């Protein structure tokens, strides 16, 4: 069954990047505005899902060769390691630190270890969502 999905493909080529950008924005905005690792990850995952829907799995895999199971695992590992690393500084497990720095372009910016933790969360979310969706869709054929 061959379906003519030119419109969908054309739209998603542009929409994907908009959604991806939005996802990255949500991720970075997280600490002060609505957003964060979980939502950011979900939005990024949904952008990828759109790609998979518009094109077929093989095509997307050629462009983005990622093992999503590994990604989920790495995500969890990153989060856990962030927690453990605080033990080396004599503080409690999962203790987060933050401080303000004067960066060249951004001006005074807050940098925090939460961001690393959130990277782990995002990776886990993207990895899991896509593992589930891909394995179900692969099972279909």
């Amino acid at each position, binding site marked *: 069954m061959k379906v003519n999905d030119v419109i969908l493909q054309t739209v998603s080529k542009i929409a994907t990047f908009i959604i991806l950008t939005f996802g990255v924005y949500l991720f970075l905005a997280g600490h002060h505005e609505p957003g*964060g690792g979980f939502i950011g990850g979900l*939005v990024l995952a949904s952008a990828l899902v759109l790609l998979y829907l518009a094109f077929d799995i093989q095509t997307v895999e050629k462009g983005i060769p990622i093992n999503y199971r590994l990604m*989920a695992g790495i995500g969890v590992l990153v989060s856990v390691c962030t927690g453990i690393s605080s033990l080396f500084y004599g503080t409690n497990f999962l203790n987060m630190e933050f401080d303000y720095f004067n960066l060249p372009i951004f001006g005074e910016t807050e940098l925090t270890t939460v961001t690393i933790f959130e990277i782990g*969360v995002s990776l886990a979310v993207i990895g899991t969502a896509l593992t589930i969706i891909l394995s179900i869709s692969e099972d279909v054929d």
Partner: protein
Amino acid sequence: MSWLNFAIFLPILYAVFIPFFYKKVPSVHTGWFVLPIPFVLFIYLTTSIPDIANGGWFMHTVSWIPSLGINFTTYLDGLSLILALLITGVGTLVIAYSIFYLSMKREALHNFYIYLLLFMGAMLGVVLSDNLMVLYLFWELTSVSSFLLIAFWYQRDKSRYGAQKSMLITVSGGISMLAGFIMLHSMTGSWSVRYIIEEVGSLSDSSLFIPAMLLILLGAFTKSAQFPFHIWLPDAMEAPTPVSAYLHSATMVKAGIYLVARFTPVFGGEATWFWIVSMIGLVTLFWGSFTAVRQTDLKALLAYSTISQLGMIMSMLGMGSAAYYFAPDSKAFEYSSMAILAALFHLINHSTFKGALFMVVGIVDHETGTRDIRRLGGLMTIMPITFTFAAIGSFAMAGLPPFNGFLSKEMFFSAVLTASDLGIFHMETVGLMFPIIAWVASVLTFVYCMILVFRTFTGNYNPEKLEKSAHEAPIGMLIPPGILVSFVVVIFFFPQTMADYILNPGVEAVLPIPIEDVNYYTQISAWHGWHAPELWMTVAVVILGSLLFVFLRSWQGVYSLFPRDWSFNTVYNAILVGSEKGSEKLTEKYMTGSLRHYLLYIFAFLILAVGTVIFATNGFVIDRSNDAPVNIYELILISIIAIAAVGIIFAKSRLTAIILNGVLGYMVAIFFVIFRAPDLALTQLVIETVSAALFLLCFFFLPEWKKENVTRKVKGFNLVISLGVGTIVTLVMLSIQGNRLFDSISSYFEDAYKLAGGKNIVNAILADFRAFDTMLEILVLAIAGLGVYTLIKLKSSEGNDKRESK
């Protein structure tokens, strides 16, 4: 972290490297890499002997859960030191021995040494921990690691059976011990043994005192293989011989002895404690020696002899606990403390000669291929060194001079003789039995020791009955038992050095007052004079024992008087089979394989549990004072949600149902917007979108949408359950407002910017305040994802198989 705390973890940490050595350096026996660890620990512990001998002790705390009083506190005094020295000292020899015993080519050495190191660390943890919870943790770790060691040759049915048996018995004892510890905690409010001992005066009136004592004793007795829990020890002999030498003679079984000694200051002086510990000990002593005589397998013989010797040590601790009853300057106090000294002395002696004997049996097994004494014989000329070791070890165990077993056996006789004239706890009547049981058991001990030596090494050599032609063991296998038997002899000639540096600090840890304050003599001497009754008891043991050994055949018929089924093993097996069948029947009743049934159970339980609580506590209160006013938008949204929800039930096609479900989700998202929770709204929206995509993916392949054809009865039942759940949830929601048990914590999060540097409170809660939740959540998420993946991949591969087979 102090060196002492580190010492406990050193073996466990080192175990991580064992697979590396095993893989990367296959030409060298992995045991060589393990050997330095116990040796270094042994040297480290010996450096503290002078301090301990001068009455010092070491205590270090590393906080673990300080809010609950659970800290990793190590405490080194004379008693702990004795055990710790045995663990590391015998451990070194056993590992040295195992290098020659276990084949490099055939055995999974990395597993073996990982388990052994794990066990060593756990054992050190048991004897060095001051905190009851930490002690319990290590206690169970010894059970687990010994399970792994016993089941090392897991291909054999008997190994698995033995491992399971020892695990079940020791762990159930351990759990009862935990209950006892919790009772002690609730009486004193502390987990620290030191603190509990200081508080002991106020304890004995508590109603929990006796239950706590009994439960802790149960733990000690199961671990130390006391009657009637001794049945696991002979089956545990399926383990490789180095393991038997280590676990079942020198260390693990002594954990129970250690526990009894450690808690003597808490429970000592009580009639219950005195009676249970000394009587169980004596019964075990007798029963172990009686059963050992009938064994034909050398290792089984040693197993029963270990049981009996452990019983002897236990009974001495029991008799020694009477010291708490007497004033420190009385004669009776002196005798009682002598019993404790004798117990610790025999503890060490037993480790030396029994360790050596196990190694000797291992050598015989290794070089001839059998341990059956009916097939062995005449090995004396072929294996002269092994024979010498066996003879020294056995004669020490039989209590003959000039070996250390003689000294402690004499002290044991003194203990039972004086215990019978103590005149307390009704000893004047039943107490007469003490010397009799002890003497009879000693005769039997003498008999089995002689069987061990003379049946194996004298008589006719029958090479046709053996699997290999016998020859002397390699030098590496002879050195470890050689060192142990040299201790057997050295301790006999220099007992006083041993007493001054090792034993007295140990006794001091068990006794109520420091040793210097007592007019106390710790002279261990071999000669008490002609008029000492102990001497004549020993002489009689030797005479009668020799007679019994020579005429063994003519009286062995005694054993056939006992029906074979009448044993604790039968009881154990019946319990095992019974519990398995019972749980199978029960499980079959509710595991029907129908999802509907499972949901029914869950919902029915929810209704019952929550409903009962609400009803019983009068929890249903409607308090509308805090409610915000409901505006028109919210009413509209709620009615849309309600219509969509009810609509799903009546939907004619799957597509309609999915769309209606989507409507529900988006409406909830709009609710979040109204209540100003943009994060949640965003999450909800994206989730709805992604799950809609999921539906689209598999939509085409789902079975046709049809109404279930179920009977009226089932329908009615479903209706009741669903209405019930709905009602309960509504009631709970309504009563939440009226039942505020705690102050709201939301004000704490208002400081999010100050505490976590985040202006978005939701995000600060997720990633800073409750990051642990989030971490575990993504872990669950990842596991769920992998679960879906595995389920689907597994299913399709099986499908392929089926197609192929067609």
